[in-house]
């Protein structure tokens, strides 16, 4: 079918690439070639074995890299699982419901993830609650309100937040931000202490709490949320915006009636990607959150440890596979958690058609 002589001389030597192959043949419909997508690679020209070998090797390398990536994710899950099973079998506590994580002694493993899970979820959700409205405002400001001339440099400033290493955010959070917001935290604790979120915490160190950590985390996920939301909002069809303007809508009404409905799904998935990042953030939380032997009460003024910070705190000293495996089991839960959140985010984004 894709005989080179039919398609016209030398064009047929290299195989037409898949994506425009159809359009090329569509341009010469009188030749009667059906728009076959990728012609079989072996039907190139005669006597060009060297060319074909190069092509085949290159194709193999490229496809192999693609397969490698797919296999890699599987391998991450698999190897973490392999390492996590032996300690789980010797675990004296219930892995899912125990609130203590004692894995230092390989002969007496007793670890459970409930507290880690609760702290991880609370700090991430708190960060998300702070960052979502802010991110929305920034994305709308940069795409709809800021003059075109300054929108780019302004956007770059927000992106710079993503370039700051998280360890520096952690240090800033503990040494600078925490003392600065301490009066506000105390005020919340004294006036709203009856509500479980603001009840007195379980650590003595002022500021080394979920509250501080959540604020720092919000700053860290802000650039993720804004970057993707911005991209989606900027894609609002010009015609929609102009139609709304022609009907006499104010700027805010334009945003509410055209930009927001169009970009909502993208914004939601951007926020979920931010959540995924927050769940796995390690060093900033390791620095900020104070370790405590007491259980987590659900208050924002508690200390504690997330999955990632617990692993980071204890892992460097480990020298036996069983103890390490216990932490790897916690890491596996974190991996599954972030996998689910990220997959859901991508699903939303793909379904809405706005690719980011």
């Amino acid at each position, binding site marked *: 079918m894709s005989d080179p002589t039919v398609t016209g001389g030398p064009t047929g030597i*290299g195989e037409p690439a898949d994506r425009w192959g159809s359009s090329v043949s569509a341009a010469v419909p009188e030749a009667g070639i059906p728009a076959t997508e990728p012609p079989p690679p072996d039907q190139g020209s005669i006597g060009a074995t060297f060319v074909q070998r190069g092509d085949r090797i290159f194709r193999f390398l490229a496809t192999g890299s693609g397969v490698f990536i797919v296999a890699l994710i599987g391998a991450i899950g698999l190897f973490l699982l392999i390492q996590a099973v032996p300690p789980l079998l010797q675990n004296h506590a219930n892995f899912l419901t125990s609130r203590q994580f004692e894995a230092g002694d390989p002969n007496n493993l007793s670890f459970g993830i409930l507290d880690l899970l609760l702290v991880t979820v609370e700090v991430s959700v708190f960060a998300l609650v702070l960052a979502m409205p802010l991110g929305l405002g920034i994305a709308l400001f940069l795409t709809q309100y800021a003059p075109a001339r300054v929108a780019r440099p302004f956007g770059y400033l927000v992106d710079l937040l993503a370039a700051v290493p998280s360890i520096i955010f952690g240090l800033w959070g503990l040494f600078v931000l925490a003392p600065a917001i301490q009066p506000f935290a105390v005020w919340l604790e004294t006036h709203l202490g009856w509500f479980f979120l603001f009840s007195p915490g379980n650590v003595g160190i002022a500021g080394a709490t979920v509250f501080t950590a959540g604020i720092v985390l919000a700053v860290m996920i802000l650039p993720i949320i804004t970057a993707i939301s911005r991209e989606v909002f900027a894609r609002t069809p010009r015609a929609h915006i102009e139609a709304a303007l022609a009907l006499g809508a104010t700027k805010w009404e334009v945003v509410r009636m055209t930009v927001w409905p169009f970009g909502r799904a993208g914004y939601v998935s951007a926020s979920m990607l931010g959540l995924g*990042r927050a769940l796995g953030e390690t060093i900033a939380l390791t620095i900020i959150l104070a370790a405590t032997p007491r259980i987590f009460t659900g208050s924002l003024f508690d200390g504690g440890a997330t999955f990632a910070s617990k692993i980071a705190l204890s892992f460097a000293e480990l020298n036996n596979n069983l103890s390490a495996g216990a932490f790897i089991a916690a890491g596996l839960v974190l991996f599954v958690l972030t996998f689910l959140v990220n997959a859901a985010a991508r699903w939303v984004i793909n379904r809405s058609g706005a690719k980011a």
Partner: protein
Amino acid sequence: MSTSVDLDKSAVEPTFVGISGGRRARNALATGLMTLAFLIALVPLVWVVWTVVSKGLAPVLTGHWWSESLNGLLARQQGGGAYHAIVGTLLQGLVCAVLATPIGIMVAIYLVEYGAGTRLARATTFMVDILTGVPSIVAALFVYAVWISIFGLPRSAFAVSLALVLLMVPVVVRSTEEMLRIVPDDLREAAYALGVPKWKTIVKVVIPTALSGMLTGIVLALARVMGETAPVLILVAYAPFINFDIFQGNMASLPLLMTVERSNPTDAGADRLWGAAITLILIITLFQLLAAFLSKVTAPKTK
């Protein structure tokens, strides 16, 4: 009776009516809130940079900061520098880049040139997205599980580089893919018309056209992973001396130096901590500038 009133009124409703006060107020409120949101985001940025500069500038201005290690110095002893950590960060980053760049580029080539629309390509794109979201600590644990638990190899800087590869590859794929996609199909078709095989078209036509953007993406990705702390925390131990051997022994890096000096309550510790912070930011900034420079120098000179 009401005819006089009718005469005063225009026959048709006016085309433009003033915007009611309520709508006007809501519009102003929304504008204000959004501007405010942007300004709020600038607060932590300025605050963090100010903190780091004000606390870390003094130690890095001494000459020995850039040329000496902390070997043999006590925790409270002033002096010494971060040379060992700078070397470690750059070495680990370099090894990571050498490994991650070809993989990332090949995956992007597969996605754009070979796989488009196939099932495997969709799976790959999805997995790249997932890999983007894999927490750095999970990447480190994976390398630990394979490299140290199963292969029984010692902790080393190379293991750190492997973990960084996992974090860098998806970023390289994303940026390269985007750059390859904007290469006009006319260029590819012109090459095919001249009888150039596909792989040569990619290597000699497509990649050089996209090179500028690809390099920028790679350097930016590298800048991003060099600040990662979780892998160094798990996969290599700190050393206060200079170590060039990535396969053996302890090796410092700037994030690791910071985590170690964090528990040092002396003035010397604070100096090292914030000095390392500003050094890390400087290196990342330098790489970002390098990216901008590269994209200018290597831009296709067609016009």
